[in-house]
């Protein structure tokens, strides 16, 4: 039982990280980026290129991955969001789906179809409590999620950028009229969203392996988590992620492993029926 809790929370932490990336972009431009999973995949492969192929020190590999992801996030915004800005949101959402497919194929061309592993930045024997095993990497995932959650909370609520983001999300034209650098704000949101995906990729690659198609399922789970938690809600993304990880793990153990993916969507539908805006939903959820 204890082991299932640990593994469920570790899986849920990954889902939560993907959802946090989705949230940043959603809170700024009210768009769901369905290529978030593929950005995660790019982060994993860029990390592997740095740490494994070019044998960079792990800290440098992580730093260069985050920098690369920031640039990719901005390029993504220029290619996908800007040309369709002001059009119906579903057009942008469809374009993000298409971009996800493009990114998968680019990764296949660059890195090939082989699954590859990235070493964990933390080493050491696993901790054992009454038969429950917690690996160092799982601990690192929990800590990383906690730090990111705190930083994102502070950024959104205590910094000027957070206020600019909220203003941009509420009314882009008015924000521009009052002198808010709207494009720069959106660019920072895309950059941070991509960085968060990159971090999720770096965390996932040591335990799940990196391959070009790894992002599809994780991105979709990140979306489910966002819906469960309430789109745009920070605690909702984290609690929703952990909740989904536990549901999947316990469902696979005690009900049937054959329907593991189905649990996510059953829970999502159940939550939407009971709480149409998610567990912690805010008004902006109606734009999803």
């Amino acid at each position: 039982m204890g082991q299932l809790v640990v593994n469920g929370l570790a899986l849920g932490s990954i889902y939560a990280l993907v959802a946090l990336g989705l949230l940043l972009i959603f809170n700024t431009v009210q768009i769901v980026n369905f290529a978030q999973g593929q950005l995660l995949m790019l982060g994993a492969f860029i990390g592997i290129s740095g740490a494994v192929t070019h044998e960079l020190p792990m800290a440098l590999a992580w730093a260069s991955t985050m920098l690369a992801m920031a640039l990719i996030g901005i390029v993504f915004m220029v290619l996908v969001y800007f040309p369709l800005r002001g059009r119906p949101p579903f057009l942008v959402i469809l374009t993000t789906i298409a971009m996800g497919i493009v990114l998968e194929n680019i990764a296949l061309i660059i890195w090939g179809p082989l699954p590859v592993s990235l070493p964990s930045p933390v080493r050491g024997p696993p901790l054992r409590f009454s038969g429950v095993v917690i690996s160092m990497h799982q601990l690192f995932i929990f800590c990383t999620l906690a730090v990111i959650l705190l930083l994102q909370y502070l950024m959104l609520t205590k910094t000027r950028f957070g206020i600019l983001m909220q203003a941009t999300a509420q009314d882009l034209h008015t924000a521009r009229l009052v002198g808010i650098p709207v494009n720069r704000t959106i660019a920072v949101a895309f950059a941070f969203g991509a960085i968060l995906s990159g971090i999720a990729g770096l965390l996932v690659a040591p335990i799940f392996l990196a391959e070009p198609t790894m992002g599809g399922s994780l991105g979709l789970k990140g979306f489910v988590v966002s819906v469960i938690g309430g789109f745009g809600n920070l605690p909702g993304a984290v609690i929703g992620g952990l909740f989904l990880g536990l549901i999947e793990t316990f469902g696979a153990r005690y009900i049937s492993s054959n329907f593991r993916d189905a649990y996510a969507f059953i829970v999502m539908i159940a939550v939407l029926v009971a709480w149409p805006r998610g567990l912690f939903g805010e008004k902006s959820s109606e734009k999803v």
Partner: protein
Amino acid sequence: MTGAALLCLIGFTKTASADAAACPATIPFGLTTPLTGNLALLGTQARNGAEFAVDEINAAGGISGKKITLTTEDTGASSTDALNAMNRIIEGKPLVIMSSMISPHVFAQTESVNKAETPFIVGATNAKVTAQGSKWLFRTHAHDGQLADLIPEYLVKSLKKTKPGILVVADDYGLGASKGIQAALAKLNVTPVAMASYAPSDKDMSAQLLEIKDKGADSLILFGRPSDITLVLKQMGDLGIKLTTIGNTSIVAQTTLNNLSAAEADGNYAIGGMIPQTSSDPKILDWAKRVQDKYKVPADNFTVSYYDSIYMLKSIIEKVGCDKPAIRDALATTKDFKGMLISYQADANGDLTHTLGIYRNKGKTPEFTGPIKESGF
């Protein structure tokens, strides 16, 4: 009069034979296989084997002086795309068509190939692929039915394990194999203590592994693709679950072993199509190295069987020429065609592989324990 008639008959037969044997300036082969999507690795390894053989044959002068052109179409991971890919291949009027190891794709394509009346060679592993009644379809790779019989038998009789858990990938491949394994275990009076599966996109199999451990399994029968088998074995190591593990050749595939530690890989068994890495023949090891160097992807059992298939076709076309029914008939009567690692022999269904390999990992190095033959061969 009779003599003149006989001469006429001989003359006619010769002309007919010469016409049937006539090959175009280049001999067109078609191949559909997944090169994108989550099955891209398997499809790429198969494509590499076929392409490598074609390049070798062409470099050596082709088939009776005629070069082979291999047209490849990507099926992605969907059966609909596989059918579309096959229709594009058929439009090119190939002499022979090869398709992938993904059984649902082959099921979707078979009717179209039957209508095109073209010899059809596949690696699809579902036992029922060759039971469709197609006289054009042949398989040159081991199938699940063989594995489903041989793996339980080896586990129970040779490894003396009687409380297996079963963990398979929840797709046509894994679930099909699971049914066969359960039936074979029942014949051996063994009941699996736990049966679990995971979706092809799943990354966390810890719940299934814990269930199998909690139910007291003494062994694990594991069926999946290299990437998910890697995760299962890694997670067994992380959870400290030590079970005698046996399954398909993904367990000993180079792509799996590359991502495992020696402790995670060590001692696991596999039964399946032949892999080149365990050969003691330096020529075969050199071949595997050249394939790896060229494509940056290790050669596996599918690479070997698709490579052999091309050479089998070369041998047949050299004998019967470029006549589709004649090629089909020759495939159907194949006997002791010597491939890279095994000899191929056609049975009544169109299956040509009846010898499989038993492997065991010593650390991260797979070792060939010995061949195992399908009953009756």
